């Protein structure tokens, strides 16, 4: 890991679903500590792209090169499956839009947070529980609820639990797919506040997919605008939002309701 290597380097990535284009010709570099927002209308290929980057979907073209801790930059699709899966549950985090997809609903909140620790070999119950408590505190969940099932939590709490569960192994890169989707506005605001705090405090890099420009403005340093599977514009968040160059971005920005 050095300062002049990007953490994630994406080169001409594309994914086709038969005749249909999922996304195509996407290239960017993500630097350590940087948050990249991907915005665009629904069906524009945001989630397809995120799935390709986070190794859940094999792209049809292009390379995704990640700067691993041990061996430096490597194409994640040329790793062995076991290396890739290890990377996914230690160095990476994946926060899903629906917390019920990312959580294990049959086991308690503490076990949800501890799962990654146990997966990498933690075998001391007391330590695992302590760590789970710490993380619940960090995401502002009452530690008294550590033994409760996530299904008894509210939507916002489930989402925060999912974040804790992902961050417990101190990942360097977090992928977030619509992290605030489905939450009401005040809960969204709190969650965004929390995320922003965690990202700066822990020096995380993140790729955040959202259709909500307000989320993008709050979280992202850099923004990528997608339409029909293509990247139509990218640049610093403020620049893109305040001075949009592409016609579609202009449309998108002007379509926000001004209160």
């Amino acid at each position: 890991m050095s300062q002049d290597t990007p953490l994630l380097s994406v080169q001409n990535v594309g994914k086709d679903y038969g005749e249909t284009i999922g996304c195509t010709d996407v290239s960017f570099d993500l630097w350590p500590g940087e948050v990249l927002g991907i915005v665009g209308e629904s069906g524009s290929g945001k989630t397809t792209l995120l799935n390709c980057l986070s190794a859940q979907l094999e792209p049809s073209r292009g390379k995704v090169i990640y700067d691993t801790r041990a061996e430096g930059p490597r194409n994640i699709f040329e790793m062995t499956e076991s290396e890739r899966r290890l990377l996914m549950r230690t160095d990476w985090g994946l926060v899903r839009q629906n917390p019920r997809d990312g959580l294990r609903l049959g086991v308690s909140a503490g076990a949800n947070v501890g799962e990654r620790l146990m997966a990498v070999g933690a075998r001391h119950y007391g330590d695992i529980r302590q760590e789970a408590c710490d993380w619940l505190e960090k995401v502002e969940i009452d530690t008294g609820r550590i033994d409760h099932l996530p299904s008894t939590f509210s939507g916002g709490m489930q989402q925060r639990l999912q974040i804790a569960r992902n961050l417990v192994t101190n990942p360097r890169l977090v992928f977030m797919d619509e992290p605030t989707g489905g939450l009401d506005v005040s809960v969204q605001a709190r969650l965004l506040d929390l995320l922003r705090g965690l990202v700066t405090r822990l020096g995380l890099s993140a790729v955040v997919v959202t259709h909500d420009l307000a989320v993008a403005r709050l979280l992202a340093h850099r923004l990528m605008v997608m339409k029909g599977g293509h990247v139509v514009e990218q640049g610093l968040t403020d620049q893109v939002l305040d001075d949009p160059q592409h016609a579609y971005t202009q449309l998108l920005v002007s379509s926000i309701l001004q209160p």
Partner: protein
Amino acid sequence: MSATETLEGYNFAYLDEQTKRMIRRAILKAVAVPGYQVPFGSREMPLPYGWGTGGIQITASVISADDTLKVIDQGADDTTNAVSIRRFFARTAGVDTTEKTEDASLIQTRHRIPERALKEGQILVYQVPIPEPLRWLEPRETETRKMHALEEYGIMHVKLYEDIARFGRIATAYDYPVLVNGRYLMRPSPIPKFDNPKMDNMPALQLFGAGREKRIYAVPPYTDVKSLDFDDHPFEVQKWDDCCALCGAEDSYLDEVVMDDKGRRMFVCSDTDYCEERRAQGHVGPLGTSPGTPQAAE
């Protein structure tokens, strides 16, 4: 209890020779990769799934005319399941049967390992209802196979964590997950965890058959079998305050038997052969009289 005559019109030990060869090949592979679940073409047997069709197919494939067979069910030699299977092989293979653990060369079991230590040359065949240890945690077969292949067993500890969080201790009492030979996670079939330590470095060969799920796995003699646990919550077996009411044994697995509707109950060895052997040697428990007294029915 030697069988006098075998059924006409059936092959030796019921299964045809090609099927036995197929099962033996699966067993050889299972022995070569301890703890790995080998798929096999499970056959319809003349008794329902859940009665031990997997174990019976293994027994039928490895039994020979000079074997002596013992069949136990929950430790007992005289329950329906054990009696039926023993009679099945007595009639289809004409082999000698016994209730003595020591005399048996082949033991088919459900839910227990005999108390008497097994020795080299003996084979223990387990009946397995669900072979996949990760099944209740991960419903997808494709995913559990991948987890076995990549040794991703952290999730099993999530279950044990959950036990401690809810009950203050690891409450799993039977079918307690084990790691075989430092590699494969295995379900020991629904034996009480009391029996888990007996599997470790056992001199006898242990074969596991799941008929409905069509899987065979094995633990070769002298193989490490480690029960999963946490550093600060180590694996431990059940203990009883009482001894066996009939033979006074304090080191065996005890069944609780309700005596009447006034709440009287007794604890007796679940291994009937072990209990009888001890009583023949003169050990007497608090409720025991002399050998030959009818036992409380289970």
